[in-house]
């Protein structure tokens, strides 16, 4: 793969080095687009801190003159929406899913990439085959499986079936294929087996990659809707997305509270994005596109 890092040379040939005017125009266009992209976030905050009367007023209001923070306490005190419980459920599900996926998929990916076993090829093709089946197609059969295990409205049903992620395993295998062999050989000389060298040498040296996978898995799990909707039947087991959706389609809606709930639901991920964006970007860029 050619990676050129030389950014010098005659000016003018580069697409990035268009004329000053063109660049300024691009910059202005980007500013406008950025503002548009931020509008939904602005609306969430505006509505979350307003009263219903202010939201539904015919005159457009940019921001409530007296932010109503009570919406937050009202939300958590509302017996109709199990907000605290659903946040807890989402947190537990996302954290356990991330840890479990990471453990299962990195070990499987490493085994497929590095351990010379006669039938490793066949096993790998099996994993690849699951990538061809869109996960949405399997929700019905998986639901059948989970219900016969008695895991409906249960953490086990929400978490365990999502752990065996063929795509993450595939990414891990690709990554470990490119892991420097010398390091493992040194570990082997020191008397470590596959298991030992994986945990003591490979994992500690793959921090960035593992962080990227972890962040992507966490975001996916927190935002998942179809699977929790199918599995979490009783309100006690709702994740935050299911709770929000129920709230949204309810007959009577308290608008400001609804938006406060949305704000609370995206807050954890906004933090993840702000602090771990480097890993996310890197992880997304690695989503198999480099072949």
């Amino acid at each position, binding site marked *: 793969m050619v990676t050129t890092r030389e950014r010098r040379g005659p000016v003018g*040939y580069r697409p990035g080095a268009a004329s000053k005017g063109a660049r300024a125009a691009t910059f202005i266009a980007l500013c406008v687009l950025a503002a548009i992209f931020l509008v939904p976030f602005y609306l969430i905050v505006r509505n979350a801190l307003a009263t219903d009367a202010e939201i539904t007023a*015919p005159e457009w209001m940019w921001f409530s003159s007296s932010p109503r923070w009570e919406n937050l306490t009202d939300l958590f005190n509302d017996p109709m929406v199990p907000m605290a419980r659903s946040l807890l459920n989402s947190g537990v599900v996302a954290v356990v899913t991330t840890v479990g996926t990471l453990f299962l998929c990195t070990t499987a990916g490493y085994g497929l990439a590095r351990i010379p076993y006669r039938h490793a090829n066949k096993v790998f093709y099996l994993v690849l085959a699951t990538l061809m089946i869109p996960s949405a197609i399997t929700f019905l059969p998986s639901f059948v499986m989970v219900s016969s295990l008695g895991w409906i409205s249960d953490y086990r049903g929400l978490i365990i079936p999502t752990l065996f992620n063929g795509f993450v395993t595939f990414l891990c295998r690709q990554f470990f294929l490119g892991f420097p062999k010398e390091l493992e050989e040194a570990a082997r000389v020191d008397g470590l087996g596959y298991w030992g060298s994986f945990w003591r040498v490979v994992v500690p040296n793959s921090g960035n990659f593992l962080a990227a996978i972890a962040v992507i898995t966490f975001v996916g799990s927190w935002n998942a809707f179809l699977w929790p909707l199918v599995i979490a039947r009783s309100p006690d087991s709702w994740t935050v997305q299911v709770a929000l959706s129920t709230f949204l389609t309810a007959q009577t809606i308290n608008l400001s509270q609804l938006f406060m709930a949305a704000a609370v639901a995206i807050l954890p991920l906004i933090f993840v994005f702000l602090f771990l964006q480097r890993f996310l970007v890197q992880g997304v860029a690695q989503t198999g596109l480099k072949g």
Partner: protein
Amino acid sequence: MAVSAEAAAPEAGTGVRAPRSRRSGRRRTTIAFWYFVGPFLVGMTVFTFIPVLWSAYLSFFDARNTVTPASEDFVGLDNYVRMLQDDAFRDSLITFTVFAAFVVPLTFAASLGLALMLNRVRLARAFFRSVFFLPFACSYVVASLVWKMSIFNGVRYGMANSILDIFGIEDVPWLFDPSPPWYWLVIVTLRLWIQCGFYMILFIAALQQIPEQLYEAAYVDGAKPGRQTFWHITLPQLRASSVAVLMLILIAAYQAFDEFVNLIGNQAYARPPLVYLYYSALGTQQDLGRGSAGALILALVIAIVTLLQGKFLGFGKTEGR
């Protein structure tokens, strides 16, 4: 998946072996392999392979409210026939087709456009990248909530109608008008907003891989930077990524469920296959036999379309890289 063609041949790594007898060494690597891969494979068998086979089995039975139908409930291909004759199911396939026809090219063009624009500016590049990527943190449920209750709520105080008001245009009912085109605008913009940034990042990574010398050489040969270099260098160089991105967008579109359920619900005028299957198989009827047949038909359609798209776009040809 887009990546599989090149990756399909795993290298049997020449691992370093302990200098024991060959046979016991091989046995130990076999054991080690199953240590690593075994738990994953068991889980995948239980939660993917068995359910898919089981569902194929159910699709031949009259399985209402049950996952273990009695043998006299065997109905052969009835479920398939009924599903294919079902107008609602066929409508859902049409809904999906229209949806994909909008979403796939628009998402592709928008994310490539954003990536090219970002590649052009120096100032605040990281900031812009973050802003465009941030919607990816939003779930479809939250975005649907904002779209339905605040931007396109169809009444006076909604944001879209407030803006139209400025230009003296009458209020539009958006989602609440069961005839196209307005609800499509709501659904498509929502998905665009969430997904653009994600694919933009893929394109930015790909753009950085294009060797600078190509542009230099083109310049020397008298190509005009801009349109000419875009069509003759940038786009061809992005081919592999473009094919992959198109596949990813299409596959994601098949899974469209969240925004349709939350924006429109179980309405016949805009109901993609998954929503229909969800309500018919898990709703009041719990007709798992028909639902399974529908899922398998859908899987078949997806497989065919993916193959056709692959063939059409020349996926699988190896390019000199």
